[in-house]
């Protein structure tokens, strides 16, 4: 393992990118994630690993640079915060449509519009349901610690390449700005042109070889029958993600009667809320979805058969609650699913969560 450091979440994204053998980063600054590119620029990885770091003229340019570079089979990424991700939405849809791997980091801030620069989780729908146009999904990873900001860069690339689909690391201003102890990863070399050709030569646009047809990266297909076939293939891919790559964590759920469901920094707050609630004699546990797409529906369905209710805690107006309700309903259960949250950059406190739990679920 690499060194033990105290670092900001945003800085760790940059360091993890260099260490996992990333070939290129294209971005445009925006609070609260500007430290990602700042750290990369200060580290000058082009001298060390040959990684390209480029500040584009806009978010639209960044994502299209990612699109082009991803088409060549390289490991490439970008990062932004909510309004910047909206600008990238078209390009993200194109990348998903062209079936190319990349990592997109969204360090969310409060919206809508320019909103605030304080932490938020209001881009849940945008991240897991689409964002851009068309029937596509991103693989969405929700880190809850600075350590996971490190770990999910490599994981994001692995999943992106496994499925030839963009991965998103959906963080928030709190995880991006706070410092925690982090065990950095070991350095992995960047892949050579030969390795890329051997592994991804069937689709990478890395120069036509005599023994194969030319590869074309496109999301355009004028023949509807072929476009439908493409869509069916995408759907099979999403079903495979659901079957093979769901990640979640459970805390004190074994004997729990009530389950809090929260991701990212909200899950950290809920961990403390669980401890406070347990001290007060309430049997509460926490389910933390780590992949928001694919969503951990199955475990929620299983829990719904034995618990008395769920409450989601989100820094938005109640978005993930819809997926929890669906998961409970699909399991044929009717236990209550409630929501508690704060918006606009306000972070709920553990005691507010416990109070909401008492008022909305346990008392009611």
């Amino acid at each position: 393992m690499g060194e033990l450091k105290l670092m900001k979440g945003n800085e760790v994204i940059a360091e993890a990118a260099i260490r996992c053998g990333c070939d290129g980063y294209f971005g445009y600054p925006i609070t609260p994630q500007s430290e990602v590119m700042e750290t990369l620029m200060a580290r000058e990885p082009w001298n060390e690993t040959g990684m390209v770091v480029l500040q584009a003229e806009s978010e639209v340019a960044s994502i299209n640079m990612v699109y082009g570079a991803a088409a060549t089979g390289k490991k490439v990424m970008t990062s932004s915060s909510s309004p910047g991700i909206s600008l990238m939405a078209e390009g993200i849809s194109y990348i998903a449509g062209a079936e190319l791997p990349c990592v997109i980091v969204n360090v969310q801030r409060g919206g809508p519009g320019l909103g605030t620069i304080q932490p938020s989780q209001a881009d849940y729908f945008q991240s897991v349901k689409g964002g851009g146009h068309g029937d596509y999904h991103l693989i969405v990873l929700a880190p809850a610690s600075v350590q996971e900001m490190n770990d999910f860069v490599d994981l994001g690339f692995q999943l992106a390449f496994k499925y030839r689909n963009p991965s998103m690391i959906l963080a928030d201003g709190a995880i991006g700005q706070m410092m925690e102890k982090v065990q950095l990863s070991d350095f992995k070399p960047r892949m050579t042109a030969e390795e890329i050709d051997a592994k991804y030569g069937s689709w990478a646009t890395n120069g036509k070889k005599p023994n194969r047809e030319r590869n074309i990266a496109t999301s355009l297909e004028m023949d509807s029958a072929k476009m439908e076939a493409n869509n069916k293939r995408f759907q099979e891919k999403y079903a495979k993600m659901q079957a093979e790559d769901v990640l979640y964590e459970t805390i004190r759920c074994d004997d729990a009667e009530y389950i809090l469901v929260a991701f990212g920094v909200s899950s950290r707050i809920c961990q403390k809320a669980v401890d406070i609630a347990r001290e007060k004699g309430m049997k509460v546990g926490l389910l933390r979805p780590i992949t928001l797409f694919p969503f951990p529906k199955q475990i929620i369905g299983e829990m719904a058969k034995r618990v008395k209710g769920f409450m989601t805690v989100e820094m938005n107006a109640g978005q993930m609650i819809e997926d929890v309700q669906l998961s409970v309903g699909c399991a044929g259960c009717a236990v209550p699913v409630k929501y508690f949250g704060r918006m606009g950059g306000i972070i709920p406190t553990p005691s507010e969560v416990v109070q909401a739990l008492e008022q909305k679920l346990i008392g009611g």
Partner: protein
Amino acid sequence: MTEELIIAGFGGQGVLSMGKILAYSGVMAGQEVTWFPSYGPEMRGGTANVTVILSDKRISSPIINEFDTAIILNQQSMDKFEKMVKPGGTLLYDPNGITRNPERTDINLFKIDGTKIAADLGNVKIFNMVVLGAYLKAKPVVNIDSVEKGLQQSLPARHHKLIPLNLAAVQKGYELLESVTTL
């Protein structure tokens, strides 16, 4: 052991870097740590604060609404955070920064004349290290060895020549902590 601490004062007093050096000292002592700053549209002359949590267990919420200890370096922070110290907790302040003494009777109160001590040491910039030393006397969450290692890790190499001065400031603060009320 879990210590949930808020350090609050004016921007420019070294609040965030004091927190960072403490957090790094915790890492060096093998603890879990979280450093959570107030960030946002802050301005020069405005308030700055940072929550630092040190624990021997996995840290849950980095955002908390009551603290084991508050280090308070200006009046605005006194107004905001005095009431957020847990009963039985600790409040450490520099009397130069405040216009009203703390009023709580259910917490331990300490003061440190950090501004004057730093001036006497010949460098007002080490004010925050004096306060850190005082804090470590009141709450010995890490030892001085770990602080030295924390300084080495958190300061860029070009500033390592300042480590002895910083450690002297920590030592002075440690020696000159004044107890106001002990429960």
